[in-house]
């Protein structure tokens, strides 16, 4: 059997701690995350702030600043079987922006403010594809046009601040595509954009994926976006994946009570309701994750067994959930009857 495109296993990225800030407890931001990404598929990594989804994305390419962060021994990120966490720096540079490209929420921080955007796109093309200046420029114009920038021949001379947020994100996508990556990691790529522009960018990403066959790891807090874009979804809570499922299955029948609560809390513009179902309490602090199941203090179903934390238990049809209810589904039914 061939190795999956990307395989993450038991990833742990912690921050601070005894030697670090304040000598306090380590913040276990990512704490045992495992998932696979197949060629051409879109995996939605979804969760609320502080759940560890962005740190997971950064850890894949070792972009977490160390210190204060550190990726713990035993963590593994394999690209076609090749261990990236132990790869030499030059190999890692090759992979970054080559095989794995990233797009972030705020393109302003990833773009150089004093260089015309076209130069920045061309630079990546030259570095990773070894094209000459003239060819790189031609390719830049083609890419800018492809990502929906009108008059690319003129716009390539613009500086980042002269472009709108939507246009800047298009430039970022052009840069990411410059090296024909097999994986695009997109971290909240539309969160800073207006909704009509967001729809344009999401449509663009879907078109490009169909055209280029790249896999997308989409990190987002927006359950509407995940529903429309992802093939599979991994839900994160308190540094861990708590549920993973094909997108239809997850939305029609969530297994984990956290997923269930999250979905019930999302307002639907087509179906107004009197009252939204809120999840009581607050997201726990990464330096003090609760003992046992980390969702237990907020869980409406919690019982004695939840004092010990379950692993990701396999449900039907490729589903996994970190909840004892997978083994004892009768409990949920009994509760909903009362």
């Amino acid at each position, binding site marked *: 059997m061939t190795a999956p495109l990307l395989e993450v296993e038991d990833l742990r990225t912690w921050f601070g701690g005894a030697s670090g800030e304040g000598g306090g407890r380590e913040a276990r931001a990512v704490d045992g995350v495992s998932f696979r990404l197949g060629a051409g598929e879109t995996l939605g990594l979804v969760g609320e702030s502080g759940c560890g989804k962005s740190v997971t994305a950064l850890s894949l390419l070792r972009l977490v600043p160390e210190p204060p962060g550190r990726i713990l021994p035993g963590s593994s990120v394999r690209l076609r079987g090749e261990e990236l966490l132990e790869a030499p720096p030059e190999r890692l540079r090759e992979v970054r922006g080559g095989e794995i490209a990233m797009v972030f929420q705020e393109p302003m921080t990833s773009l150089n403010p004093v260089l015309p955007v076209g130069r920045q796109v061309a630079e990546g093309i030259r570095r990773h594809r070894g094209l000459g200046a003239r060819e790189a420029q031609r390719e830049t114009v083609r890419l800018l046009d492809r990502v929906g920038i009108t008059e690319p021949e003129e716009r390539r001379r613009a500086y980042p601040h002269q472009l709108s947020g939507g246009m800047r994100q298009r430039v970022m996508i052009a840069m990411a595509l410059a090296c024909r990556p097999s994986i695009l990691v997109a971290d909240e790529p539309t969160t800073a954009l*207006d909704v009509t522009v967001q729809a344009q960018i999401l449509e663009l990403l879907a078109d490009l994926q169909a055209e280029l066959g790249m896999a997308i790891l989409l990190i987002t807090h927006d*359950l509407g976006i995940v529903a429309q874009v992802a093939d599979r979804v991994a839900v994160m809570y308190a540094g861990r994946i708590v549920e993973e499922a094909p997108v239809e299955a997850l939305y029609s029948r969530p297994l984990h009570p956290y997923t269930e609560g999250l979905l019930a809390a999302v*307002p639907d513009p087509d179906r107004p309701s009197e009252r939204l179902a809120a999840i009581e309490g607050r997201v726990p602090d990464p330096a003090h994750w609760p003992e046992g199941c980390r969702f237990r203090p907020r869980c409406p179903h919690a019982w004695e067994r939840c004092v010990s934390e379950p692993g990701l238990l396999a449900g039907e049809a490729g589903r996994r959930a970190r909840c004892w209810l997978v083994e004892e589904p009768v409990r949920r039914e009994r509760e909903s009857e009362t």
Partner: protein
Amino acid sequence: MRTLLEAEGLARTYAAAGGAFRRSGRPIHAVRNVSFGIARGETLALVGESGCGKSTTARLALGLEEPDRGTVRFGGRDISSLAGAERRAFRRRAQMVFQDPVGSLNPRLRVGDALREPLRVHGIVPREEEAGRVAELLRRVGLDPGDARRYPHEFSGGQRQRIGIARALSVEPDLLVADEPVSALDVSVQAQILNLLAALQRDLGLTYLFIAHDLAVVRHVADRVAVMYLGRIVETGPADELFERPLHPYTRALLGAVPRPRPGLGVRASVRGEASAAGAAAGCPFEPRCRHPERDAACRRDVPELEEKRPDGAARCIKTPAWEVELLDPGPGSPAGTRENSDPA
């Protein structure tokens, strides 16, 4: 007196930031001829994308900024004519809730003191009753009376928003103007705050002017909606009708762009381009992006008026037929089924 807050013909223009290397640009028309009314106990949502003028409208409505033209009436009185005790009373009765409550809370003030301050300024209760009132306010917004001794940084985002709401409530207002009150919050916490605002409105009879960009949230909270585009209201009407049968092509585009939390629908760009004040020199400001099948030269001639298109529903579009009005009075040769009313999706 049913209408609590009424805005008429509001306009506000800002001088464009010239910048060191630029000649001063054209003035920015943040708000242009905006009118609306909110009945007591009702929620009006102002929605639109960034730069549409919704926040400026909120500030004008509260008298935090002077309009260049137009009037704001509160309880029937022009707020610019209020002075002395009347002005103070208006300042008390119309309160604001911000997106980021931290910015409006003094970090060195304990929560109890932050709540006590407005009580004192407006003389709401005698000093000996202040502590009791603070405890009551905290309970009312779902916090613990013991939280009065803590500092703002000790609270989570959702709890801080509860404190912001408690502070606004402390002076017993009639109107809350909430500017993106849940957009910084996680979805599970957002639901808590929306439920709290709904409960407070029900229990206290509050009137809300709710500013938001998230249409799903708006659908959930609003009785009436006004959609803004480049400084103007382009459609207004009851929330259910506006969401189910949007009149203006922009409203349709906006609704169509929202990714639904139900798989299988896909995401399609409902409109091209971005809002730009520089775009249309004359005519309908949405025309450059409009996908209305009948869009033509007439759209580029004049700015359309906000016209009644059906009972209690108005839109600023010359190509949107006044179809419900016709339905009520079906003239010969105007069958009801042929109207352009495409699905927002």
